[in-house]
């Protein structure tokens, strides 16, 4: 300690230091700008604030520009950056961090694109705060991913968490949203405390909070200490254990996943789209950096622990997802399962494992954000609209939306040629290369479980009747009567129960058509002329206050879905040319 006091501490941050955190700076600046612009936007007069066109256009555009600016800065750093650590080895600007930025910024960008339509539909005000918090959370995630010191790591973690607590509870009129925010806040605080105590113990054991870089002794840290003293002390062991708990909570690994489904379900869907990817990416990169790089000299002490976490998460996440009846909860558990696959990368470690992890995160960003993006278009104010019952027959009502969701689900299930397959392939290969064939086998077999629930959801959307059995019977009764008495009963067909009607009554006709769709078998299809045109009126009748107007989606949602789908396809087919190489180089620099 005395030595520390004796050292004169001169704080000289060079311009190069600032340049190395350019993406973060851009984000921070734009976040403040968003708040300022929100003040300046016209809000007076008879136009209620949430109707103001400017709020729905200027703010998201500004936020998106901020994301794009950060993305541009990231790419610039890839090209011209020196990859050195900034601020006395506290923040990294290595390619590993930058690669994580790509995933985080992609998710944030998609989340922002999905937001305006959602906010408009739910009539949410306070948009300035919304986008500012969005950007702040992104900033925290980037900081977490780039942290090369336990202090920066905790700073990033808290920045992202605090912003997300508020965002999760943003739908003030919905109890589940507030519950999500509260739950996330309480449990996350616990986890942060664990993490912080672990950091303290590790500091006690090693005398430093800095990570230290591989291959250089410029900023010595924990890594250098452990290389010099590879035998682990009790203090260090307890510290590692507590760190594991903290990280496992953040990446929602089993048995620390309890908060995930509730929070993902209650939070606004665009926020879920963003946080499910962003938090995971940031926390996993930090996890990987701390364990697979910094604590690598004592790998024998933690490897079994993380191995068990990975296996538990893979199996448990997939099994728990099997029984979910709500699409958001299902995707939440699926994200738990994916965290399990990702942990394989941490267990395997080394350049291959980390590269696979990074590549998987980038792919996952597009898949998961896309899937939640579709749900953001379906979610209603009371948080309904995402149950399996609501999704039944979605294809007949909104074919494109159902098509997009099916696309993302298939990609998550790991079907080629989408990104999910490429990512899984690479990760499983890394498991084999790293000498863990059992992880390859477990991963492959749990993927089969995963396939079931994704396909189940797709089946509900594409292959089942338009409404739940009870509701349908009630609604369809008049239509049936109409069909069998007034209309032309064109009954017959293989099933002998294909009923269809041309009577174009408003809602009863719609219900009848929905029934006809359900019953229409292939061979009789030529006698079912209305099958393709289930009217949108049905949708409208069922939606309550705060629902979609006109049944059509805002162009922004389409843009987001299109981008995510494009990304998912490109990442699965053409981009691995160099993205995998890039991930390899990036992982070597973590």
């Amino acid at each position, binding site marked *: 300690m005395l030595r520390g006091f004796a050292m004169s501490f001169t704080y000289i941050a060079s311009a190069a230091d600032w340049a190395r955190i350019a993406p973060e700076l851009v984000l921070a600046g734009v976040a403040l700008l968003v708040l300022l612009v929100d003040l300046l936007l016209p809000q007076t007069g008879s136009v209620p604030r949430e109707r103001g066109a400017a709020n729905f256009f200027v703010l998201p555009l500004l936020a998106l520009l901020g994301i794009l600016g950060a993305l541009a800065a990231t790419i610039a750093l890839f090209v011209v950056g020196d990859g050195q650590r900034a601020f006395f080895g506290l923040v990294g600007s290595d390619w590993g961090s930058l690669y994580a930025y790509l995933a985080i910024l992609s998710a944030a960008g998609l989340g922002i694109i999905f937001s305006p339509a959602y906010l408009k539909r739910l009539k949410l005000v306070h948009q300035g705060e919304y986008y500012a918090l969005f950007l702040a959370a992104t900033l925290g995630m980037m900081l977490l991913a780039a942290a090369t010191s336990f202090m920066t790591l905790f700073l990033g973690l808290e920045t992202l968490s605090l912003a997300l607590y508020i965002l999760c509870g943003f739908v003030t009129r919905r109890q589940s949203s507030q519950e999500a925010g509260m739950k996330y806040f309480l449990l996350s605080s616990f986890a942060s405390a664990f993490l912080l105590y672990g950091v303290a113990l590790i500091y006690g054991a090693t005398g430093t909070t800095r990570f230290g870089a591989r291959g250089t002794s410029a900023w010595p840290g924990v890594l250098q200490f452990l290389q010099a003293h590879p035998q682990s002390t009790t203090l260090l062991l307890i510290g590692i254990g507590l760190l594991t708990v903290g990280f496992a909570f953040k990446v929602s690994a089993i048995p620390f996943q309890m908060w995930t489904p509730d929070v993902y379900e209650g939070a606004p869907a665009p926020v879920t789209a963003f946080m499910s990817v962003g938090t995971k990416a940031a926390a996993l990169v930090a996890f990987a950096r701390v364990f697979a790089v910094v604590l690598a000299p004592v790998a024998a002490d933690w490897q079994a622990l993380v191995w068990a976490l990975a296996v538990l998460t893979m199996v448990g996440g997939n099994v728990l997802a099997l029984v979910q009846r709500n699409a958001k909860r299902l995707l939440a558990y699926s994200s738990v399962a994916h965290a399990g696959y990702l942990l394989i990368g941490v267990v395997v470690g080394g350049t291959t494992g980390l590269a696979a992890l990074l590549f998987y995160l980038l792919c996952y960003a597009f898949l998961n954000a896309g899937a939640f993006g579709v749900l953001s278009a379906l979610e209603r104010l009371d948080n309904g609209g995402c149950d399996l019952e609501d999704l039944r027959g979605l294809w007949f009502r909104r074919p494109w939306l159902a098509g997009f969701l099916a696309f993302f689900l298939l990609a998550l299930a790991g079907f080629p040629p989408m990104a999910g397959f490429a990512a899984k392939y690479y990760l499983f*290969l890394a498991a084999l290369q790293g000498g863990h064939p059992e992880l390859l086998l477990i991963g492959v077999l749990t993927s*089969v479980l995963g396939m079931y629930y994704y396909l189940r959801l797709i089946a509900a959307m*594409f292959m089942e009747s338009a409404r739940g059995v009870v509701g349908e019977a009630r609604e369809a009764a008049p239509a049936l009567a109409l069909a069998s008495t007034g209309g032309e009963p064109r009954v017959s067909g293989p099933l002998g129960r294909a009923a269809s009607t041309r009577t174009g009554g408003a809602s009863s006709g719609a219900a009848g058509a929905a029934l006809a769709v359900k019953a229409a078998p*292939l*061979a009789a299809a030529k006698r079912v002329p209305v*099958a*393709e045109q289930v009217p949108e009126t049905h949708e409208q009748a069922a939606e309550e206050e705060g629902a979609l107007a006109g049944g059509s989606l805002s162009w922004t949602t389409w843009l987001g879905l299109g981008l995510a789908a494009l990304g998912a396809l490109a990442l699965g087919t053409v981009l691995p040319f160099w993205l995998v190489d890039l991930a390899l180089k990036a992982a070597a620099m973590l």
Partner: protein
Amino acid sequence: MFPMLSTIIFLPLLGGVVVLLLPRERVHLIRWTALGVAWLDLLLALGVMLAYAQPHPTVITVGTVPVVVGEASPTVASVTFLLQEHVSWLPALGINYSLGVDGVSVLLMTLTTLLTVICIAASFRVEQKLRTYLAFMLLLESGLLGVFLATNLFLFYVFWELMLIPAYFLVGGWGGPRRVYAAIKFVLYTAVGSFLMLAGIIALGYYYRTGGHYTLDLAAMINSSTHLSSTVQLWLFLAFAAAFAVKVPLVPFHSWLPDAYSEAPAPVTAMLSGAMAKAGAFGFLRYCLTLFPDAAHRLAPLINTLAVIGILYCALLALVQSDMKRLLAYSSISHLGVITLGIFALNAQGLASQQGIDGAVLQMVNHGITITTLFLIVGFLEARTGTRRLEDYGGMARRWPIMASVLMIAALSSLGLPGLNSFAGEFLALLGVFRSNAIFGVLGTLVVVPAAWYMVRLVQNAMMGLRPAGGPVLAAERKGGLPDLDIGEFLVLLPLLVLIFYIGVHPLPLTFFVEH
């Protein structure tokens, strides 16, 4: 060089996208576009087939395979891929975009394109979500063609899974009342096998690495000096066989098939049984035999036993089915057992017999033709009467002379009447089996009895005998009459009938392809 094979694979995919973009009301345009694309693809495939049949000066010998051996000379024969296309994709991981045809895949490719044309033509009655249906049909074709033409294992797996997606949607979206159950069961069974194969492929690339570089190109692996130890071969063989055995299917893994085949709409069932089931047998032949010869030798008795059980057990099950589609489904499993038996007719040295392979491949084509005819006829019956139950029919030959004749021809072909197509294939395959193992040969041949029985039962119950006094058939007749095959339906079946007779009389051109 013009990327002919890529064109053949991706033309249907492109056609599917075009079909999706057409306006919904232009039903005729949509149908004829899809059919036109399928026709064009068939013509291209025929062109490739003709080119393959020419004596080719630029034969590229890519490797020697110790499996396909001539009867006379015990030396190893070489396998050639023609029209190769090769684009580097992820060379460090051994992943390349490489295509090529050999004699077997050229036959199966042409079969697939032919069956697609026929099944799309047979789907002209579909009206519900027509564009999506046709797009999925074309996507299915793309996936199947890719499976037959890929020469890189990664690419092969991509196409293998790609064909599963449209099949899932086609069974689940347009099928009968239990379609969701059938579709999910189908995909889950297949997925378990496929994922195990994926693990196998990853491991294979890992074992075939040289100095940190992986390879998954079939040619490179066969040429490689790396010899897998027999334990590794055993596990990898089992991983690959899991996927193929589900797809074929072999008996303990077959329970998805009757459900999927009976729930799917008839043209889709025809595609599944006519073309997709062949992908499994093709996988055994192309990958299991060439990549893991030792393991194939060791496990051949196991596979053969399963095949024989499948042949006899499913033939017996077919005897007692009252649902015509289920009857055909079980008969299909039984016939594919013969094909598997032919493929795994290895002799004492672990070498495959030429006759076994010849017969198996011939039988793949023949079974594709015959079973498609049968399923389509059942589809036509069902469209008229709304029932598939044998008991509901009877004495229909008087009313439907043409339909009855066509069904009779297809049934006779299926039971292996000499002079029709299936005879030559089954005979050759079983001959190969006899040469390698008489017991399996005898057991396999026993199937002739139940096969004739269930087919005769099908024809007799549906077309001969007395008209039932009531039931759905009579009801349908009272309502709108029961027309015989119309000209469109007949034209759909005509090419298949021609092939049934032509191959039956003159099967040599097909074996030419297998042997060259």
